[in-house]
Structures are given as structure tokens and as C-alpha cells.
């Protein structure tokens, strides 16, 4: 599959936005879907639909097999040891909530500390905040430096004897900084502290190898990986899934239910209560296949080229200020234009069909640190090309013209 022609695989680009071609630069928010994924959802509902894991009829067995196949595809894609280390959730947010809730319930007491960073988005902060309220734990924030990075040293500085979990992003959705996860995990494990990685931005853009990263938990957002919405994945080492209590109760997660007691099902069903997002799980297999077909190395190379071209182009544009300058950076460029509020930028760009995000990107702590209420953000996916960046620059210039800037 030639990455230069990949846009053709995404039917959304056949549509016009305000009579212009769509230039989609909001993949960090959510990615577009290739035809194969859309077709898979349609086909499943049209020809193969049934609930999974319960009935013995033909459709139920077939659907269960398809559902479990995705689990195996994910296991292989992220190099997990066991397919039962893959738990489907409704999103990365639920995956992190699952860990915070069950880990907190079993292991945390007043005064214990969770170490996160200043660049976490809200889904890797708010679930821990609940424990601050319910259990009286403390949350420590590893500092972001002026380049918009979190270093191993800044993590080390905040580790104390009370640190019970380190929960960190793989890739910042604002500055694009890629965190040294492997080194952080080694450090944490040397002090017997487990590590949760928020992989919302990491999973679509980086090579995922759980054996290499060696983290204890990794949360994935499927809709950012060219997959359907309403689906996330929690990877967790088996020992954790065995040790932690169940999260939600309901059908599908039990072994035996009596009036006096209830026993819970085996992994991974223990964590998959109720009817799951079946069609989404089955379609996500196509997203994995799509990524595999292009090859993550090619994706990384393509997005790095785009990001560098984007940085070069926007740096030449005076009045554009780029947020952060991490050495190791993913395909995200956040910026401001002096004299134009990010929401005005986004409205003006939208008129040209250029879709970016403006706001705090669910990272208010980081924006407070940067002293900015909001930023504009262009984020890239496999379907973007240099023409998209040229159009971004043209539209930014239009913005400057409307606001009478030089």
C-alpha cells in the first residue's frame, strides 16, 4: 500500500467542506475511518450480527470467534504475551478509570501518591482525582520543561517512598513530546512501582511493543487508530488482571451467581461486563490490518516528514508561535498567532475546509503552565500530505489578513 495514495482509502475526503476539499488536521482528536473499517461494520450488521459469548446458535458462535479474533490481532500488534491481557473498554478513558478504580480500591490508602505529569490530558488526571477525594491520596505532577518535554529526571525527582503508581502519556497531544517510557518503566520497577501508560496519542503513531516498554498498563483509544468510536483497549499484565478486583458488575463477567455469593469469570471476561461494543471490536480488526499493511515504520517516517515540513513552514511564517520544541516529537503542532485567538483561527481555517482544533485540548494544567488559555493545534494522520500543510499555511495567512496582521 503506497502511503502517498492513502487518502483514497478514506471516503470522507470525497466530501466538500464549505465547497472546499477537506484538509483534516485533527487526527489527535479523532482519526478518519478507511473504507474497510466502515464496510466491516456494515457487513457485520447486515450478514453476521449476533451477541457474543452467550448463545450456542450459528451466528453467536461466528460472532464470538470474530470478536475474539480481534483480541488476538491486538495482542500481536502490541506484542502482549497473552491474548487475555487485552481487555476491551468503551475508550481509553474507561481503561484508565478501570485501573484507577480497581487499583485504588485494593491498594491505596490515605497519603499514598500517584505520580502523573503536567502534560496529561484530563482522562489521565480526573480518574486519579476521584481517589484523592475518596481515599485521600495525593497526586504529584512531574514538571514539563520549557521545550514541552517530560524527562526521566523530572519523573525521578517526584518519586517518593509513597509513590504507588506512575501514570504518564506516551505522546503529548499538545507539544507532541514522546516520553521515555522504557527508561521510566525501568526506573519505576527498580522501586517496585507499577506504570500506566496513556497511549491515546502513542498507539496510532508509534511502534507498540509491550515487552520492550515493559509497562504494567497501556490504554488505547481505538477511534484515534482509524477504528470505530466507543471502543478502547486496556492492556494489562496478567498478574494485575488476576489480582485486581472486577470493575463493573453484570452479565458476561460472572462464573456463578447465587443469592449469597457471586464468583467472577476468567480473564478477560472478568472486565467485560454487559454487552460489549461488538461491531466496533470486530471492525477494529480491519483497522489493525490496515495499519499492518502500511507498516508502522512507514507511518512513523511519513508523519515525521510531515511534522518537519510543518514546523519548517510555520516557523517561516512570522506571527506564528509554535508551542514546545521537544527533541523527540510526534506529529502534532500546537501554535498561536499573536493577536488572533485560537477560536478565531479555527473558524477562519474551517471556511477553507481546514479542520484543526482550538482550545485547551483537555490539557488545562499544561495550558496554565504555558500561560495560555488556548492554543490552535494541527495534528497529522496517515492520510495527510505536504499539500495539506501548504493549505494550512495559506489559510493562516488569510487569518492574518482578516486581522490586519503583517
Amino acid at each position, binding site marked *: 500500500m503506497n502511503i502517498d495514495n492513502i487518502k483514497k482509502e478514506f471516503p470522507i475526503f470525497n466530501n466538500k467542506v464549505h465547497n472546499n476539499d477537506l484538509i483534516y488536521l485533527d487526527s489527535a482528536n479523532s482519526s478518519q475511518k478507511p473504507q474497510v473499517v466502515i464496510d466491516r461494520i456494515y457487513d457485520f450488521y447486515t450478514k453476521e450480527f449476533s451477541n457474543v459469548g452467550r448463545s450456542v446458535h450459528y451466528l453467536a458462535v461466528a460472532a464470538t470467534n470474530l470478536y475474539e479474533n480481534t483480541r488476538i490481532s491486538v495482542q500481536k500488534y502490541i506484542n502482549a504475551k497473552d491474548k487475555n491481557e487485552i481487555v476491551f473498554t468503551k475508550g481509553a478513558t474507561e481503561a484508565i478509570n478501570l485501573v484507577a478504580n480497581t487499583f485504588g480500591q485494593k491498594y491505596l490508602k490515605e497519603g499514598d501518591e500517584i505520580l502523573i505529569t503536567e502534560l496529561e490530558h484530563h482522562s489521565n488526571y480526573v480518574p486519579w482525582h476521584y481517589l484523592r477525594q475518596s481515599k485521600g491520596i495525593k497526586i504529584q505532577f512531574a514538571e514539563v520543561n520549557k521545550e514541552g518535554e517530560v524527562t526521566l529526571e523530572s519523573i525521578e525527582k517526584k518519586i517518593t517512598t509513597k509513590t504507588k503508581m506512575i501514570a504518564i502519556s506516551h505522546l503529548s497531544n499538545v507539544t507532541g513530546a514522546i516520553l521515555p517510557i522504557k527508561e521510566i518503566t525501568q526506573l519505576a520497577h527498580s522501586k517496585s512501582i507499577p506504570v500506566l501508560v496513556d497511549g491515546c496519542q502513542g498507539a496510532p503513531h508509534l511502534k507498540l511493543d509491550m515487552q520492550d516498554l515493559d509497562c504494567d498498563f497501556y490504554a488505547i483509544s481505538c477511534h484515534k487508530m482509524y477504528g470505530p468510536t466507543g471502543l478502547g483497549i486496556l492492556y494489562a499484565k496478567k498478574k494485575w488482571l488476576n489480582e485486581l478486583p472486577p470493575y463493573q458488575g453484570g452479565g458476561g463477567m460472572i462464573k456463578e451467581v447465587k443469592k449469597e455469593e457471586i464468583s467472577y469469570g476468567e480473564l478477560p471476561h472478568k472486565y467485560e461486563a454487559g454487552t460489549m461494543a461488538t461491531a466496533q471490536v470486530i471492525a477494529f480488526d480491519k483497522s489493525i490490518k490496515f495499519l499492518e499493511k502500511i507498516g508502522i515504520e512507514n507511518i512513523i517516517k511519513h508523519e515525521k516528514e510531515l511534522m518537519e515540513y510543518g514546523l519548517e513552514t510555520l516557523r517561516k511564517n512570522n506571527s506564528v508561535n509554535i508551542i514546545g520544541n521537544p527533541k523527540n516529537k510526534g506529529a502534532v503542532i500546537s501554535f498561536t498567532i499573536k493577536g488572533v485567538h485560537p477560536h*478565531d483561527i479555527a473558524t*477562519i481555517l474551517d471556511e477553507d475546509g481546514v479542520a484543526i482544533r*482550538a482550545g485547551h485540548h483537555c490539557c*488545562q494544567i499544561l495550558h496554565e503552565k504555558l500561560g495560555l488559555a488556548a492554543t490552535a493545534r494541527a495534528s497529522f494522520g496517515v492520510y495527510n500530505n505536504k499539500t495539506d500543510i501548504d493549505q494550512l499555511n495559506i489559510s493562516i495567512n488569510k487569518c492574518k489578513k482578516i486581522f490586519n496582521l503583517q
Partner: protein
Amino acid sequence: MNLKELYQEIILDHGKNPHNLKKMENFNKDAKGHNPLCGDKVHVYLKLDDKKNIEDISFEGSGCAISMASASIMTSLLKNKKEKEVKEVIKDFLEMIKNKPELSTKILKEDEKTKLMCLSGVKQYPMRVKCATLSWHTLNFAMEGKKEEINIEKFE
């Protein structure tokens, strides 16, 4: 959609150099407003005299051109108005932004209404309507003496 209608010169001028953008000394009423979607914040200050006339009105805050211009135009038009008149203008403005083609209040002069109508361009941009209405809802809260911060998400 028409960007020229949204970003008229008067909006850009007020957005760039907002009038009455300052913290007031000796205010006797105030309220804070917040738009969680974009993080915009506004703090409206009022000084009412014994007869409940607006002796002075100002605001502090940061935000997009639309929200700054809206607060700036609002404060310029309402100085020296009576409390009752202010309430009428707020109601009229919010109705116009929501669904009425024109302003109907007799409180404002025609040229003042024309100035205010410059904000009507946001009607074509549903995501931006709250940028224009934040300061007005906040002023309403200040007049009513409500203490809690307004979350603009609660308003239509």
C-alpha cells in the same frame, strides 16, 4: 457562511482594543462567567447609583475577538442606563442572537442598534454563539446579584 459578516471591522477594532477593559474600584455588583469549551473567562463589574442607574460598567477577561468585542460593545452601550433598561436590552440582544432577525428595543438609538447588530454574524456559526453571549449572561447575573460563576454551557 460569511467570514466578512462575522469579522466586521468594528468587531476587530473592539476585539483588539476593547473599551472598559479594566477592574473597577468601588464596584457594588459583579459576576464571573466561564466558557469551559474554550476556556474564555469574563468578570463584569457594575457601579449602580442610589436610583439604580449604571454609573459605571467594566469587565476583565480574555477571549476571542467575538467575545471581547461583545463585552466591549455591551459595556459602551449600557453606561448611564437604568437597571430596567439594561435588562430589556440584554433580553432583546439574547433573543436576537437566538432567533430574531432584528433588535426591537426602543432603549437604544438606531446607530447603537446597528453597532450591536454587527454581532449577529455569529448566528451562522452555532459553535461561536456563546462567545457573543457570555458577557451578556454574566451581566445579567451581576444585576441579579447572583454569586456563583456562570457556566455558559447551561445556557442555550
